[in-house]
């Protein structure tokens, strides 16, 4: 059955983006509403998707399959590229996260009043590509969405960003492009090694396929090809499969971001406007984790098992390095950016454990970090919008003048530092638990990982105390601007706060979705 539900998630924002682009300037006021209506439609579609999703069913659901390109490669072979979309538990959780975060970010975008036409069409384009990335089941299609995400992002940071936007946007695009180039190498190598048996007999020519389902089945590997398992081909003295796995690890690691490839992230965050920061931290980073699980582990499980230790160590370094850096920050947004690096380190730790607990934890951590970091960046945005300043030292005793804000900040901060009953705890707990369980990983790594939680408690509580408690004090020019949240902000932060609570208290809602997918990986 081809329901078109998943395609609608991609096509609706695309169409809306075109419509906004073509609408004359006199309809300026309507752009934001068109975008918001599309986001609401996406939410409704998401609801249908979740209600129709059979959690116990393994494999992809809501499949849509259209033949797209049969690219002739020389005389003897064909590259078959199809439009295939589908979801399993992993992608569903990510799609759900993206739809929610994009909805929130869209509300947050209402404060943007410069070149709205370009802004909203780029924003919707970004929505389409990100969702496309999560639902694509064809590597080629995935890659197109993955690459195409860069351009809207580049312009969104580059046009609407802060003073140093040119540098930040360029750094972002070059880092990510280098990463995606590595992924491209693997994509070509994988496709040139995997044969679609069915179409090969049909066309009488070797048909190479990009279909995830074919790539993940090692029976389809062509004998003598680059990535075959029996006769490993060496590249610079390294087995080709190992080589490709490392490329994928670095490629997605840049996106994640993993220390030492993280330096684009603080710059991009500091310069990006609030809604774009929200999208960047809330969803774009998750594509790195998603790619690692779906592609690096899905297609190279035989290799991945040997690299658990390396990945865990990289995760640990990210956790500690991000945490220590966050301690030293004076700019609230930069602090949150470094805390993002630290928290995404847990994802690597969970993935490196290579067991069911670790993977569940990693996916849960991605989901919860999506909610929490969105909240955190909205919080930074709330202050920035009122004062055009984000220095932590410029604010004291905000609790007196902004009580609602304080409550929501408390939820976000405590959620991030891993207070039980909030979603951050579950993710971190399960990744650490998985890491302790893994036989290949020395216990010292998860033990040091726990230190990351302590670090995040230090910097978040410290910040909270400095900014919100004590006598109200701030610079004279800010005093009159510091009013409590308006309705729009309460909705945005409230929705995310409630979701954090729900998933903190009932983590099974998510675990039930992702568990069958995770079990299938092993």
């Amino acid at each position: 059955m081809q329901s078109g539900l998943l395609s609608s998630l991609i096509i609706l924002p695309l169409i809306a983006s075109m419509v906004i682009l073509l609408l004359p300037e006199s309809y300026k006021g309507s752009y934001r509403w068109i975008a918001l209506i599309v986001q609401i439609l996406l939410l409704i579609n998401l609801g249908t998707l979740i209600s129709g999703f059979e959690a116990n069913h393994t494999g992809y659901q809501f499949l849509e399959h259209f033949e797209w390109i049969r690219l002739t490669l020389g005389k003897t072979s064909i590259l078959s590229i199809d439009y295939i979309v589908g979801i399993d538990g992993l992608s569903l959780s990510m799609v759900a996260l993206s739809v929610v975060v994009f909805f929130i970010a869209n509300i947050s975008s209402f404060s943007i009043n410069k070149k709205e036409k370009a802004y909203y069409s780029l924003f919707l384009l970004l929505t389409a590509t990100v969702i496309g990335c999560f639902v694509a089941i064809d590597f080629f299609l995935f890659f197109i969405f993955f690459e195409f995400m860069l351009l809207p992002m580049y312009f969104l940071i580059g046009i609407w960003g802060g003073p140093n936007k040119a540098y930040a946007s360029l750094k972002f695009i070059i880092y990510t492009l280098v990463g995606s180039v590595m992924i491209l190498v693997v994509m070509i190598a994988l496709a040139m090694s995997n044969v679609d048996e069915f179409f090969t007999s049909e066309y009488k020519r070797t048909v190479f396929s990009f279909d995830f389902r074919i790539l993940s089945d090692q029976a389809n590997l062509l004998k003598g090809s680059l990535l075959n398992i029996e006769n490993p081909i060496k590249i610079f003295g390294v087995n080709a499969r190992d080589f490709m796995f490392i490329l994928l690890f670095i490629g997605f690691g840049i996106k994640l971001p993993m220390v030492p490839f993280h330096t684009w992230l603080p710059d991009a965050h500091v310069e990006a406007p609030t809604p774009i920061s929200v999208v960047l931290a809330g969803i774009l980073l998750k594509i790195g984790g998603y790619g690692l699980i779906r592609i690096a582990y899905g297609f190279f499980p035989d290799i991945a098992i040997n690299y658990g230790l390396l990945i865990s160590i990289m995760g640990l370094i990210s956790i500690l390095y991000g945490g220590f850096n966050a301690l030293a920050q004076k700019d609230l947004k930069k602090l949150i950016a470094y805390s993002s690096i630290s928290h995404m380190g847990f994802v690597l730790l969970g993935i490196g454990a290579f067991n069911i607990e670790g993977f569940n934890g990693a996916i849960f951590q991605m989901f919860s970090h999506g909610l929490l970091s969105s909240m955190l960046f909205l919080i930074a945005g709330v202050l920035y919008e009122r004062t055009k300043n984000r220095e932590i030292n410029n604010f004291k005793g905000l609790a007196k003048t902004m009580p609602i804000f304080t409550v929501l900040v408390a939820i976000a901060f405590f959620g991030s530092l891993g207070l039980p009953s909030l979603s951050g705890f579950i993710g971190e707990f399960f990744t650490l638990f998985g890491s302790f369980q893994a036989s290949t990983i020395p216990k010292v790594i998860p033990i040091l990982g726990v230190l990351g939680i302590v670090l995040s408690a230090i910097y978040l509580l410290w910040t909270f105390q400095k900014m919100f408690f004590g006598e109200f004090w701030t610079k004279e020019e800010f005093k009159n601007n510091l009013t409590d949240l308006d309705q729009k902000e309460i909705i945005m932060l409230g929705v995310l706060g409630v979701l954090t609570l729900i998933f903190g208290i009932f983590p099974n809602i998510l675990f039930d979705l992702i568990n069958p997918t995770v079990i299938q990986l092993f």
Partner: protein
Amino acid sequence: MKELQEILTSSQHILPEWILLLGILLLVIIVSFQKKDSKWPYRFSFLLVLAYTFTATYFYENLPSEGLKLYGDLLFIDQTSLFFKQLVAISTIVFLIHSRLFQYKFDGEIYFLILCILLGLSFLAMTTHFLVIYVAIELVSISSYVLVATKNEKTNFEAAIKYLIFGATSSAIMLYGISLFYGMGHVLNFAEQTFLESISTNSPLVLQIVSFLFLGGLFFKIAAAPFHSWVPDVYEVTSTPIISFLSFAPKAVGVLVVARVVQANFTDLNAVLLLIIFVSLIVGNLAALWQTNLKRMLGYSGIAQAGFILIGVLKGPQTDFYGAFFYILTYLPITMGAFFLADLLKKQSGSDEMEDFKGIGQKNIFLGLNAVIIMMALVGLPPTIGFMAKLMVFSSIINLGEAMHSSVYYGLLIFGLLNAAISIYYYLKVPYFMLIKKSYNQPRYNPDFFLTLVLTYFSIALIIFFLYPDFGTEWVRKVLF
């Protein structure tokens, strides 16, 4: 008598060239009897190129698949040469339309020179004979030198002299290579069996060096490093439509001849080609990073693109040059679109400096969008055909690496891709200045809707070919060796 008979029959098979040749002679007469600003040379050239394209497409319906030898073995027509002749003809048409749309007032001589280049390339595409190659390249080169010098400015003379000196040196080196080949092979046609037999007694190193000398002249036309030093100056000062044509046509046919040499397989040329590719990629990309002038930047980008194209020419057990030919096919709309964009930007901002494009894209968002698409195609990002071209070339390296069991190719793969990633920095400068930077002094704003629309055809073509590449891939598949 027999020879005469052969000359007569052979002459029947090169009808397009006859048409072109007679047309060119007629054009000279028209130019000399018309007033200076007459439109007839343009109209006549247009008709002539159309006639040439038409005959080059439809005259050869019964061409045997293994090709046709003419005039002994001087000329050789096969599907591949037809393909390249058509491409060059199309690019000439694009040149003519481009110069018309921007109301360039070219003298009749310019059309004469362009048609001479077309004639030269047409013969170059149809031969494996050293002498014909040399003569054809000289015809192309000398016409190009004059084309660069026709604009009466000091910078043009400087560029033309540079072009001439480097060109003449390359020709001399090439001729030296040819003479060595003749000494070793005793015949002048490198595709012939006797040539292969008598040449194979020499050591591979000698053959590689001699091939490098011979190919030098071709690399000069392809604008591959280290034969590239004329490129930036010439690109900067020459009229945009002319350089748009020169950036594509000689490069395309040059690659064809390199491919024929590689195909003849008298020695392993991969080492030579790899050297050229590595140097071209690094020189082109690194130098382009620092450019502030769009046309100069496009010149350096052309060097890097030459490196990418040559990747498709590397020889493996199953090489069919598919990647290179497909790349060239896509390079036509990409590069000529880029120069069209450059011309349009110059018209709006009054200069080629990228700094001066500030704010143009904000006033005219569709122009900005077009710039983004064309530059993406040059980088090789989806969803443009540039991505498909890069995909083909790089998948051919993977095949090569599998077959040759050598890590060099994987190194090349990663090196090439990293170069593609770096290149986004300088390509994105154009949309960056157009869309992101605010302009302080108001640009001389006239929307040029019609020209933007024409440019949009280029961008739409780039995207459509990405979504439906079958047309291009099937076309190229038919013309492989």
